[in-house]
């Protein structure tokens, strides 16, 4: 989807990043963040599963591949802003921190949360991905053809 045309693109982006980031990284950056985040809990952190689906033949009809663990939480800041967190794995703090970040990103604190937490997470994720891509690229086969027979 085009980022310009999707009004939710930015929020989708940070929620996805929070979901995929390692819980330990989120916890470390969250602890270092100097942002007030008084909140009430709308949905206490809850560990559950999501049924992951695939498509027959990669493009065809959906089928159930198997489940994955997911933890979710929802919070409301003192000013009434609501935040939701859905994260991979079983770390309740991770889900709660994701929900708080989601809420704060809709407030004036967005700039500092983005700089102190989301950007470092994105940098780490990018590096992990590019490192793997570089290792994969090194295993790409260069074919060279043996010329044989008459010309």
């Amino acid at each position, binding site marked *: 989807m085009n980022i310009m045309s999707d009004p939710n693109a930015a929020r989708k982006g940070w929620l996805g990043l929070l979901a995929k980031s390692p819980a330990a990284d989120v916890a470390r950056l969250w602890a270092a963040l100097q942002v007030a985040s008084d909140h009430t809990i*709308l*949905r*206490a952190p*809850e560990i559950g599963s999501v049924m992951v689906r695939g498509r027959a033949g990669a493009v065809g009809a959906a089928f159930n591949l198997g489940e994955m663990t997911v933890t979710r939480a*929802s919070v*409301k800041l003192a000013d*009434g802003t*609501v935040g939701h967190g859905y994260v991979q794995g079983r770390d309740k703090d991770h889900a709660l921190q994701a929900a708080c970040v989601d809420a704060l990103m809709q407030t004036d604190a967005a700039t500092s949360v983005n700089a102190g937490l989301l950007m470092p997470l994105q940098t780490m994720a990018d590096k992990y991905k590019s490192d793997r891509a570089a290792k994969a690229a090194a295993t790409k086969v260069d074919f060279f053809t043996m010329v044989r027979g008459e010309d």
Partner: protein
Amino acid sequence: MQAQVLEGGFADVPVDASHAFRAVMTAMARPGEIFTISGAQPPAPLSPASGAVLLTLCDPETPLYLAASHDTPKVRDWITFHTGAPFVAAQNAMFAIGAWDDLPLSDFAIGTPEYPDRSATLIVERPTLSNTGATLRGPGIKNQAQLSLPKVQSFQDNAQLFPLGLDFIFTSGDRLAALPRTTKVT
């Protein structure tokens, strides 16, 4: 979704849900007996009792029929956030909620001979609930019990379908009672 509809769920989910489940199960086991059930503060016109029943029994895999009496955006959002139950037509519903006159009884699934459990459970919101009116007899009832039922004939017809049929939970304020398909009503 507005913050308002995101509130009113169980405060302590494992404990509150266990108490509510116990209440629903006991009510089903002892038809006609009235129990109180608490922990949910759903948006009107849902009663606290029906809210607690929904929180306890519904999830993304229990299709729900919302009768016209209860079909408001707030009720929809509250149920979606707290249970994830999808809203469906009566024919496909595993649960239904609403006022008696708005529930199309003949449309709900009554199960199949192989799977009598593939039938709907109806949560019927009542203005009042008391141990007066129709007489109940059957499993779980010592001698007989009384319950203020909306319409005797419907429950007699339903009991005729056994082992198929519908099961009912009646709610009013923070109180509930139940009437499974095994109960004989006169």
